[in-house]
């Protein structure tokens, strides 16, 4: 089991304990974490599972793919630490991960 902390845009926090399996988006959806839409169901094709990864964790979540980069380009509030949570695969090394969800999914 690993722990992941989701911080909402209004600074409210939610920590969940989950199996290190699947994508961060799937875990967020199945635990009803607010602020994640995931319209395309995890195909990296809608950019509605956008999160900001805490800077300390950026190296550990893996690099941004070329396609993910294109999709992130469609979100007006793109930041250097923006990621699509469907492209972050959970593993033991992400125990303690902290991400912030944006006010809006685009």
């Amino acid at each position: 089991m690993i722990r992941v902390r989701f911080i909402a845009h209004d600074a409210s926090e939610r920590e969940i304990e989950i199996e290190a399996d699947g994508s961060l988006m799937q875990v967020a959806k199945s635990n009803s974490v607010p602020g994640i839409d995931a319209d395309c169901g995890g195909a990296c094709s809608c950019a509605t599972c956008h999160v900001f990864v805490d800077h300390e964790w950026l190296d550990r979540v893996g690099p941004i793919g070329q396609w993910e980069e294109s999709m992130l380009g469609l979100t007006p509030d793109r930041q250097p630490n923006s990621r699509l949570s469907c492209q972050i695969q959970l593993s033991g090394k992400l125990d303690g991960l902290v991400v912030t969800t944006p006010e809006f999914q685009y």
Partner: protein
Amino acid sequence: MNETQEIKKKVWSMVGRDPRTIPLDEIDLSHPGIWQANEYLPFLERLRREDPVHYCKSSAVGPYWSVTKYADIMQVDTSPDIYSSEPTIGILDTNAENVYPMFIAMDPPRHDEQRKVVQGVVAPMNLKKLESVIRQRACAILDGLPLGEKFNWVERVSIELTTQMLATLFDFPFEDRRKLTRWSDAFTAIPGRGIIDSYEQRQELVEECQVYFTRLWNERVNREPGNDLVSMLAHGEATRDMPPKEYLGNVILLIVGGNDTTRNSLSGGVLALNENPGEYQKLRDNPGLIPNMVSEIIRWQTPLAHMRRTAKVDTVLGGKTIKAGDKVVMWYASGNRDEDAIVRANEFLIDRPNARMHLSFGFGIHRCMGNRLAEMQLRIVWEEIMRRFHAVEVVGEPKRIYSSFVKGYSELPVMVHPL
């Protein structure tokens, strides 16, 4: 009708053909007739079942592939390196002089650069500011509806509301706003079918639009940058030096994109609730379902039936070999009814789980830029309808548009019944 036209009609029209027995190779989804006659669904269903990636070797718009399953459509939409949006996303090839460059019909990197300039105008942050304006206008329109008499919902509500919204986004002179409706209708219409009479007439309207918008550009380019679309284009780094034709192309894109689509979903929702009275009752019992219902309406209506791509390389899709240069048409209207991807896809369910997972906005880099604005407009209108009316009752046959692209209505006769 002269003899040649008679033959053409016989050859191309699918209206009245039996979708169960017509030879597969004669199925031509591009023909507008079956869409206007509301006969298209069984043809889509047959192709999904028997020939999901289907080649139509001759049609009025030339040979083309039809992609009808949700997963295959997703595959095409998310592979711009294989399936190009250039030179056009329309099913009909256009000759070079009639091409108005617009970012919907561009591949990366140009697409990304131009889209970035304007997408902020419909970003949720901006929409929040627009919400009260939209609500005020929706209220005024609904409060002005006649009680106890038949009227055309399309004209009085759907067109009026979306046109007002579009005028706001462009900061377009409000009293001239019906010009936007006229231009939008003309750009997608087939001449001789009621909206425009000829291609020459369309060209005149295109030029009228160009003159008008050039004036707006010239006014705004010399002012401080504003929050409207014209000002954004005139000041944006990737767009401020664009040739006039490209400016016009992008204006056309934004007018059409922001107009027909939401308009027809506004009408389509009324029709769907009337055809499914149990769902209308669910809505009365629980107006909290409105946001979910909005997604379901957009799926059910699929206001743009298809988008076209052109294969850049030889490729294989659903076991079929597609050659470089082939025209590939993604039928969103079919994928949205695909039972293999969507549970009970052929039922209109306003409380459907995962209602947002539909193809109407497309997926990938060309995903509808105004999707959140469209959803917001529909949500607000339905919230205000439910505060006023027990029912918006459809009291006559809807008239559908002659198009296999814009899936919508010119008439929806209704009567409204107050609470």
